[in-house]
């Protein structure tokens, strides 16, 4: 199972942040090491060894973009948006390739003992692409934009509810004090969302976006292409490349063909069954352990899944290893109906759930739904794994006499999303608490994507208590109990976690595998040609 080993957490997260200056130098300093493969975030490794050289233009291919493409740092939706944002903007903290917090525009983020008052020290010498220094005022106004209680943006659902906007203040140009209306021990992880980039005065100008990252804006055409130039005054290691182009593609087929024709140099989310094709064509494949998942979602407030026995039976119908072997071509690890496998508090001690047709039949019989017939909604826009997984599950369920009718909906993510009785979805890696809030809490309490309509007060109290708990051991116990409730009664069938697999051309150097996001968190500043 993918999770950080205890040994990697000898320092507390607080200590990691405190010694952030050292780690930043250590992580960002060696481009040669970067070229040689990378950390233990996964297999693969980008490009060959040797000294990296400066200059050139890299074209990255991404699918999923369209007329709604955006450069707004706080509202990215598609993989193309995310790639653009991560190269143009930076948050205060950021998840590294091992899914550990690292400082970015903040040199440190410290909590008071009661986890109510948080002090952010801004990085000295960091400047926006327009030359202005990055101040605590910019950070605070950016947070306010995201966490506007009236209309919170992507990363602001939880922030908008816990920040005391009256008491929080900008102490000076380099110090921001965030006061919360409740203890919240993991505020730092919320500040590390890639959807919380810092922009001047907290104002986004779509005609001339300004950020702080290693690339500056040059041009942008929604649904087509965007171009970024090297920002020479970047506070960290400047990019090797002179120019970065992010190209939208209609589908994976066009993207893969473009890589093979050497029209692009990198692509994310390579379909698993094409790994050999890319390797055979002389390209490289970057693989990384990750925590991304494509669950089946059962609405716990609607028949037949309002009966916990039916949910338990459905979970026992899945042959999880077969799902990984067939739909992920083996590039994945077993799921146990719980998310956040990279969280240190992941309940790995709970027994691995396996296919048990007899037990499933027995549960269905006792629930009075022998010969159960259900409709499963899927769609291509969930990702290339979704439809095959749905078809395979339907086939596996036949063994227990369950008839699953697979319906492919185009688009899947329309007004019906979150109302399907039985469907699929996709999630990237998150730690347990933020994932539980966004995915299992009622919408009014931050659950903006609660597909299963899960509404369990005991579970919610445990998660909220854990969020307030500053003692990591006590917090882990609370989270274990919360996970156990979901493990026994939840509406998600999490059959596996997929590895991240990306493709690149033979002349690309410096890519590192990351557990967090594709292509080493899309950090193209480390890449050379």
């Amino acid at each position, binding site marked *: 199972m993918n999770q950080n080993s205890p040994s990697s957490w000898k320092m507390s997260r607080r200590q990691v942040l405190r010694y952030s200056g050292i780690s930043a130098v250590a992580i960002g300093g060696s481009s040669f090491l970067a070229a040689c493969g990378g950390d233990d975030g996964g297999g693969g490794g980008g490009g060959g060894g040797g000294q990296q050289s400066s200059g050139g233009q890299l074209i990255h291919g991404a699918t999923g973009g369209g007329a709604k493409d955006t450069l707004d740092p706080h509202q990215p939706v598609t993989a193309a948006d995310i790639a653009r944002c991560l190269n143009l903007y930076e948050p205060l903290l950021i998840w590294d390739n091992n899914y550990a917090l690292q400082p970015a525009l903040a040199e440190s983020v410290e909590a008071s003992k009661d986890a109510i008052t948080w002090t952010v020290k801004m990085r000295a010498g960091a400047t926006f692409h327009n030359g202005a220094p990055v101040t605590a005022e910019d950070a605070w106004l950016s947070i306010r934009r995201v966490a506007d209680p009236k209309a919170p943006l992507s990363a602001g659902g939880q922030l908008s509810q816990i920040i005391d906007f009256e008491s929080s203040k900008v102490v000076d140009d380099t110090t921001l004090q965030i006061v919360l209306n409740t203890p919240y021990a993991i505020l730092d992880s919320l500040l590390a969302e890639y959807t919380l980039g810092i922009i001047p005065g907290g104002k986004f100008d779509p005609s001339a976006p300004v950020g702080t990252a290693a690339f500056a804006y040059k041009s942008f055409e929604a649904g087509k292409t965007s171009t970024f130039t090297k920002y020479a005054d970047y506070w960290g290691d400047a990019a090797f490349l002179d120019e970065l182009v992010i190209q939208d593609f209609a589908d*994976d087929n066009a993207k893969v063909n473009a890589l093979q024709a050497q029209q692009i140099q990198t692509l994310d989310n390579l379909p698993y069954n094409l790994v*050999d094709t890319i390797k055979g064509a002389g390209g490289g494949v970057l693989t990384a352990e990750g925590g991304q998942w494509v669950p089946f979602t059962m609405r716990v407030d609607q028949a037949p899944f309002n009966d916990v026995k039916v949910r338990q039976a459905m979970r026992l119908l899945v042959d999880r290893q077969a799902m990984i072997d067939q739909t992920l071509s083996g590039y994945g690890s077993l799921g146990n109906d719980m998310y956040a496998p990279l969280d240190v508090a992941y309940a790995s001690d709970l027994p691995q759930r396996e296919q048990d047709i007899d037990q499933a039949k027995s549960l269905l019989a006792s629930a009075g739904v022998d010969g159960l017939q259900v409709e499963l909604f899927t769609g291509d826009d969930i990702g290339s794994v979704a439809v095959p997984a*749905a078809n395979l599950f339907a*086939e596996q369920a036949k063994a227990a006499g369950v008839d699953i009718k697979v*319906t492919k909906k*185009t688009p899947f993510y329309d007004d019906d999303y979150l109302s399907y009785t039985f469907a699929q979805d996709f999630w990237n890696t998150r730690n347990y608490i933020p994932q539980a809030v966004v995915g299992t809490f009622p919408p009014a309490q931050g659950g903006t994507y609660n597909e299963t309509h899960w509404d369990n007060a005991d579970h919610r109290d445990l998660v909220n208590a854990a969020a307030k708990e500053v003692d990591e051991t006590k917090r882990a116990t609370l989270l274990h109990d919360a996970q156990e409730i979901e493990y026994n009664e939840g509406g998600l069938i999490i059959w596996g976690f997929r590895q991240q697999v990306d493709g690149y051309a033979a002349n690309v150097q410096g890519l590192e595998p990351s557990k967090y996001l594709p292509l080493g968190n899309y950090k193209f500043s480390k890449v050379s040609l």
Partner: protein
Amino acid sequence: MSHPSTGAPAAAETASAPESFFRRALRQKRFVFGLTGTVLVVLFAIVAPFLSPYGEKETAGPPYAKDGLFGTDYIGQDVLSRVMHGGQEVLVISVLATLVGMVVGILIGVVAAYAGGWWDEIIMRLNDVLLAFPQILLSLVVLTALRNPSDWVIILLVAAGHAPRVARVARGVALGIVSRDFVVAAEALGEKRSRVIVAEVLPNMTGPLLAEAGLRLTYSIGIVAALGFLGFAADPGAANWGQMMNENRLGLQTQPWAVLAPVLVIAIFTIATNLMADGLAQASQKGD
């Protein structure tokens, strides 16, 4: 083509007309080749599912493996078995769509030709409006709007694309028949119009309409396969030949048979039905 002089003898003669036409068609080599190919593919589609080594959706190995005659597909299903299972749906939909399209199209064309005058003008101008739509476009527009289209929706959409095209052909053929003596004689004897159409006009259109039916069947297969390829098959997991091409196109270099096998079967079938239609058309012309 038979030329009966009165109503009663006409009925007797027309009964043997299709048979003689078929015998003429059998003298066309291309018809024989086409018919043989068509019958073989249809037999393959009917019988093959009972002989396939694996089930339609059964896993046979790792994705894009070399196991079996044609290897495995994108999620490890046996390509040969999928091809063997994939014919029935395509063929049934194609044949039914062709039948419905032919019936509706012939009805429109013959009524227009027989009614003549303003009725002919109105019916055929409306028909021209429908003809202006590319055939697959109508299907795509409707299927995109529908949440869960059944096989019958696809059948009716493909048939709706055929009908105006068949109507134009049918009207052209019928125009040359409705003014003939035996039709006029039947009318003079007081036969009902519907009876005149069914008993006198239609039997004398058999040759050209059979040729048109063969052609329409070819187009039906192409459209149904194309809709499957574009992701509009009724069952997203079914072994539909068109859908198989779509599912496996990304792995064309790794596992070409997953795409080539359904392509080959569709190619053989469309060529065969086209040859058959060609042969029927030639037999029809020689008969004239």
